[in-house]
């Protein structure tokens, strides 16, 4: 078993998979964290900014901002799943085939 593992670790496909998946995963997580805590900090320290009216109506800028955080959460998830479906799964298949003993 330990020989197999060393083999997989040296496999360029594996190295590429790990590099690409972790950089995308952590980067998207970071974006989500920054956006969400940016929103929370606005709520906490500057609620009046979110209460700025859009144009002459009663709708405030806080409404589209809040809704965009929800939409962004879905979009980021979609970006990751798309990337994983189109490239990670192929790499995993190659790794599994090449390291079958």
């Amino acid at each position: 078993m330990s020989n197999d593992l060393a083999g997989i670790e040296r496999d360029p496909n594996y190295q590429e998979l790990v590099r690409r998946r972790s950089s995308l995963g952590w980067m998207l997580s970071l974006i989500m964290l920054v956006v969400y805590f940016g929103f929370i900090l606005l709520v906490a320290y500057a609620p009046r900014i979110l209460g700025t009216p859009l144009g002459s109506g009663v709708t405030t800028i806080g409404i589209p901002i809040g809704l965009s955080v929800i939409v962004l959460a879905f979009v980021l998830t979609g970006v990751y799943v798309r990337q994983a479906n189109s490239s990670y799964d192929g790499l995993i298949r190659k790794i599994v085939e090449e390291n079958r003993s």
Partner: protein
Amino acid sequence: MKKLSLFLAILFASVPTLALAAGVVEGGSKQAINWSAIGMFVGFVGLTLVITYWAAKRTASAADFYSAGGGITGFQNGLAIAGDYMSAASFLGISGLVYTSGYDGLIYSVGWLVGWPIVTFLIAEQLRNLGKFTFADVTSFRLGQTDIRILAACGSLVTVAFYLIAQMVGAGKLIQLLFGLDYWIAVVLVGGLMMVYVTFGGMKATTWVQIIKAVLLLSGATFMAGAVLYKFGFSPEALFAKATDVHPKKLAIMEPGSLISNPLSAISLGLALMFGTAGLPHILMRFFTVKDAQAARKSVFYATGLIGYFYILTFIIGFGAITLVSTDATFMDGSILEKTRSGIAAIKGGSNMAAIHLANAVGGNLFLGFISAVAFATILAVVSGLALAGASSISHDLYGMVIKGGNANEHDEIRVSKIATLVLGVLAIFLGIVFENQNVAFMVGLAFAIAASCNFPVLVMSIFWRGLTTRGALIGGFMGLISAVVGVVLSPAVWEATLGFAKGSALIKLDNPALFSMALAFAGIWLFSILDRSKRGVIDRGGFDAQYIRSQTGIGAASATTH
């Protein structure tokens, strides 16, 4: 199988009797009997019992019981996750919060959603690749089985217990209002049905109850939000204009209000909501019901979309209720209305009923019945998921792995989990009745705080940090768990509002402890891992490479077993 048929017969027979019994004691704050609601609810229960019967015949192995044999598709699991997550607290609670304070409801919705992307990016696939039935399979993958299973079981059971009490009390109150049943009958009915679904049908029945509930809830909410927007010519601006005109807080409902008392509280709550999601045992367990990591990741994608869509609907529903419910005297409690002169404060049954009254306002009595039945179904689905997660933790982690050292007979393990379900069910009914007149709103927050401070840190560190050792995980995990519980007890919401100590006497000013309890957990895990010079620590660190390869590639992962 005979036992099940008998149980079903008794349940079917008892539903109309219960309704009649309640008719006699009608009065007080209870509603008149709502026959269309009861009819639709009986229809839902009948359908789910048929599914339970079907699932029971196909549930033989431990894999069937805990993870539906891994035979759920990504889309089905996405619906089931959404069904598990969209509790009555979020449907009625958020629309009620929007009804009373407008924008504040959206802050909660956002917080409850943003944990999902994190689950997708860092947890879902790794969890599926490393685990089999519970998330403790993952945290104990390379660490000392006994210690880590006990830690995970404590974290899971405490989370499940608080979440379950909150749901049971909410269910009792809601059903009392909706169907005119006595509180205790409502609690017994919910607990009883939950035990039937889980003990007979296991994960398969629970999953399908959640899927059906998710479809019903999403359709009902879509119709309501659509009807509200239709009344305002599909112009949100027109809806908001009318709402700010009739609401006593006027334009203040369009910006963050008094919900967040101080900035640190806001950040702490934000942390609990975001990372708590990634540590809820009943949610994590759902990732083992799909065939592989690819399906796991797809299921979170669908779930995120469905849950996000649902929260946008509840926002519209809350505003719809401001314009259509608070202006209509039929939905008001006359005596409160006279005193306060505000339709918002005088709503019959409290602000949690905003969505229910709106159903009546836009769709008449029949649709009111539908939404009431959906609300009941929602509670049933959520408590079933919780009970299954709690029972699995007892049977798989404590009985199977700790007591039997991983050599438990599969048959015995399933029997233990069925007994555990019954015990949890009885306990939930008992606690539901004990806590009837307590304010349990803090319990969901507490469940999220514990999940974020004990389950999540250990899980994420075990997947990504080579240096993690058994001792570090154990000490840090318990530090998070204990500090979260202590932090909630000493917070204003419990110390002053629930326990009745003097205002301002709470030692901790944060309503949610996640800010310091999560920090303590991570710091404890890190410090006690790097200081760990034990032999066990060497084994723990040495196991990381093999675990990491499996978490990334799925080589060696538990496979689907139904085919």
